[in-house]
C-alpha cells in the first residue's frame, strides 16, 4: 500500500507549512468547509474510520453522539498523550507532519460545531511540542487557524496543552480531568464526553492518528478509504514494532497485512540467532499472541477473534531469551506505578500482582502463588471505572495462561530459569 500518513516524513522539512501546502495541505479542510457539518459526519461514518487510540470505536458515530442543540460551547480534545508501552506512532505524525494534525482537528471542529480544539500532548514529548507550537504559530499567521479560516468565516482555535507524566491521562475522561487542572482520574460514565465532557460541555476526544486520517478522507472519499483495508477495518494504519526485531520502527500498512509480514517483512524479523517466543500485538495492555498465531491480518477484528486486541498497534516482540515472569513483572511495575488510585481493585490488585511476581521471579514463590495471580487478576478485570484495570490484569493473566510451566519452573528451582545477558544483574526488589 502506498503510504498516506507517512508518505513524506523522511523528506527534509516535511513538518513545515510550506512543504505541507505543496502537498495538498489544508485542501481536505477546504473541502470540509464547503460541506454541511452533518455531511462531513456522514462522510466519516461512511468511511468507517475507527479510532486509532486503542478501542477502535467508529469516529463518525462518536461525533454524531455529540449534542447538537445546546447553548454550551463544544470541544475537540486531541489525545496526544501517547503513553501505551510499545506505541510511538503519534510521535512520528506530530513531529514530522504537525499540520496534518491541525487540519484534522479543524475538520473535527467544523463537523461537531466546536470553536476550540485542545491538543493534550504528553509532557515527555517536549521536543515534539516545540515543533507543534512553532508550526501552529505559522498556521495562525497565514490564516489556516484562528479567525475567518481561509476566508470562509469559520473561526477555530487550537491550543496545545502539555501533560506532566501520567499514563492514565490517555483515558478520555481522565484526559478531560487533567485538562481541567485536576488529577488525571477517570469519570464515571455515563454521561459520556459527547454529552458532558470538558468543562461539562459536549466534547469529542480523538486520537492523533484518527484526526490525521480525516484530510485524506475528505479529499479521496469514503470508498477509497474503505478499499484500503479489510471490511470494517479500512484506511491506512500505523504499526509500531519494537523489541527483539532487527528494524524496530513505525510502519504504515493496510490492516489486511498479516502480523507475520509486519514482523518479518517490515521490521526485518527476529534479531540474528534467536527465535520468536511471543508478541504483544497492541501495546502492553493486551493479551499475548504466540508464534503460530501470526498469519492473521493485523486488523481490529481479526486480532480480536484470537482473544487479543489490536489496541494502539504497538507490537512488542520477545525472543526466547525473554523470561515471561520477568516480562509480566516489568509490566506490572508499570501498571502499579501508573494506576491513578481511584478504584480499589486496580490500585491494590496491581500492587499485589507486582509483589507476587517479584517473589516468584526471585525464586521465593510457592505453587499457590501462581493461582493467586489468576485469582487477583480476575478480580481486577472488569471491576474498575476505566479499562486500566483490565489492562493491568492482562500481563499477569496472559503470561500464566500461556507460560505456566515457566512459572512452575521458577518456583521449583528457586531461581529465574530464563536469565538473559541484557537484564540487570541486581535482584529485583518489590517496593
Amino acid at each position: 500500500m502506498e503510504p498516506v500518513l507517512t508518505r513524506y516524513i523522511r523528506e527534509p522539512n516535511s513538518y513545515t507549512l510550506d512543504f505541507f501546502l505543496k502537498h495538498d495541505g489544508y485542501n481536505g479542510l477546504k473541502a470540509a468547509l464547503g460541506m454541511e457539518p452533518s455531511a462531513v459526519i456522514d462522510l466519516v461514518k461512511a468511511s468507517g474510520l475507527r479510532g486509532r487510540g486503542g478501542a477502535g470505536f467508529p469516529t463518525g458515530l462518536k461525533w454524531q453522539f455529540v449534542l447538537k442543540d445546546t447553548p454550551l460551547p463544544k470541544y475537540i480534545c486531541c489525545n496526544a498523550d501517547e503513553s501505551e508501552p510499545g506505541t510511538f506512532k503519534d510521535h512520528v505524525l506530530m513531529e514530522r507532519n504537525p499540520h496534518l494534525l491541525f487540519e484534522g482537528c479543524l475538520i473535527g471542529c467544523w463537523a461537531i460545531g466546536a470553536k476550540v480544539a485542545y491538543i493534550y500532548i504528553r509532557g515527555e514529548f517536549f521536543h515534539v511540542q516545540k515543533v507543534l507550537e512553532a508550526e501552529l504559530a505559522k498556521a495562525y499567521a497565514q490564516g489556516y487557524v484562528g479567525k475567518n479560516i481561509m476566508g470562509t468565516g469559520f473561526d477555530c482555535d487550537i491550543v496545545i496543552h502539555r501533560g506532566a507524566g501520567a499514563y492514565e491521562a490517555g483515558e478520555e475522561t481522565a484526559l478531560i480531568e487533567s485538562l481541567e487542572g485536576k488529577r488525571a482520574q477517570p469519570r464515571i460514565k455515563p454521561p459520556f464526553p459527547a454529552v458532558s465532557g470538558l468543562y461539562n460541555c459536549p466534547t469529542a476526544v480523538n486520537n492523533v492518528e484518527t484526526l490525521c486520517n480525516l484530510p485524506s478522507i475528505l479529499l479521496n472519499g469514503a470508498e477509497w478509504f474503505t478499499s484500503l483495508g479489510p471490511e470494517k477495518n479500512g484506511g491506512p494504519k500505523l504499526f509500531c514494532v519494537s523489541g527483539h526485531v532487527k528494524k524496530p520502527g513505525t510502519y504504515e500498512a493496510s490492516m489486511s497485512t498479516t502480523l507475520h509480514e509486519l514482523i518479518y517483512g517490515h521490521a526485518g524479523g527476529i534479531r540474528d540467532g534467536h527465535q520468536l517466543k511471543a508478541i504483544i500485538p497492541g501495546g502492553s495492555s493486551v493479551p499475548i499472541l504466540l508464534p503460530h498465531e501470526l498469519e492473521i491480518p493485523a486488523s481490529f477484528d481479526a486480532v480480536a477473534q484470537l482473544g487479543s486486541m489490536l489496541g494502539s498497534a504497538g507490537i512488542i516482540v520477545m525472543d526466547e531469551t525473554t523470561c515471561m515472569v520477568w516480562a509480566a513483572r516489568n509490566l506490572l511495575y508499570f501498571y502499579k506505578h501508573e494506576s491513578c488510585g481511584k478504584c480499589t481493585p486496580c490500585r491494590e490488585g496491581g500492587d499485589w500482582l507486582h509483589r507476587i511476581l517479584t517473589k516468584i521471579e526471585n525464586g521465593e514463590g510457592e505453587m499457590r502463588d501462581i493461582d493467586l495471580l489468576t485469582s487477583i487478576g480476575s478480580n481486577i478485570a472488569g471491576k474498575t471505572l476505566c479499562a486500566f484495570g483490565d489492562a493491568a490484569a492482562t500481563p499477569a493473566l496472559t503470561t500464566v495462561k500461556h507460560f505456566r510451566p515457566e512459572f512452575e519452573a521458577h518456583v521449583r528451582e528457586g531461581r529465574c530459569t530464563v536469565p538473559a545477558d541484557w537484564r540487570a544483574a541486581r535482584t529485583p526488589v518489590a517496593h
Partner: protein
Amino acid sequence: MSFHPLMLYDPERFQRSERRLLEEGEPFTFAPERRAALDELLTKYPPDRKRSAILAALYLVQEQQGYLTANAVRHVGGILEMTPAEVEDVATYYVMFFKEKVGKHVVQVCRTLSCALAGAERVTEALSHTLGIAPGETDPSGMFTLLEFECLGACDRAPVVMVNNEDWHERVRPEDCGRLVEDIRARGPAASSGCHLRIERP
C-alpha cells in the same frame, strides 16, 4: 497499604505511607517574564477555568527553582484561585514534578518493556555505578539525580534516556554511560542526541 491473608507483610517496604510534605523553601514569586508567560497561557482557557493552566504553572516553578516547594504552591494557588491543598493534590499526582530538591541534571531512564528488552536495566545499572547513586537518589555534589521512568514513547530507539524532562538520548548502551555523564556534565542540554525523527540537522 492494604492487608490480605496471603499477601506479603512488611511495613518497611509495603505498608507505609508515601506521602511527603513539601519543603517550605525560599519565599516564592514568579519572575516577571514567567508571570507574563502564565498570564498569556490563561487567555487560552475560559476565564472561569484558570486552574486548567496549573500544569503549565508548575512547569514554570520548576524552570525557576528546580523543584516544588510549599511557598511556590501557595503562590500558584493564589494566581489560579485554588487552595494550596488543591495545588498539592495535582502536583503530587504527576511524575514530572519534583517534590524535593533534585540535581542540576535529572537523568530519567525509561524502564518499561521495550526499553528493558533492549537493555535498559543495564543502562540504569551503569549510570548508577558511574554516578555512585541508586535510582531515586541525588549525588552529593547536587549535579545529578537518577530516576527510572515509565515508557517515554520512542520504543524503536530503545533504550531511551531523558534529561530534565526535555532532552533525549536514544539507543543508549551501558558502555556509553560514562561518556554520557561526562558529556552532560560538560555541555548540559547540548549533549542531547535529540530525537531521531528530526532529520534536518544544522
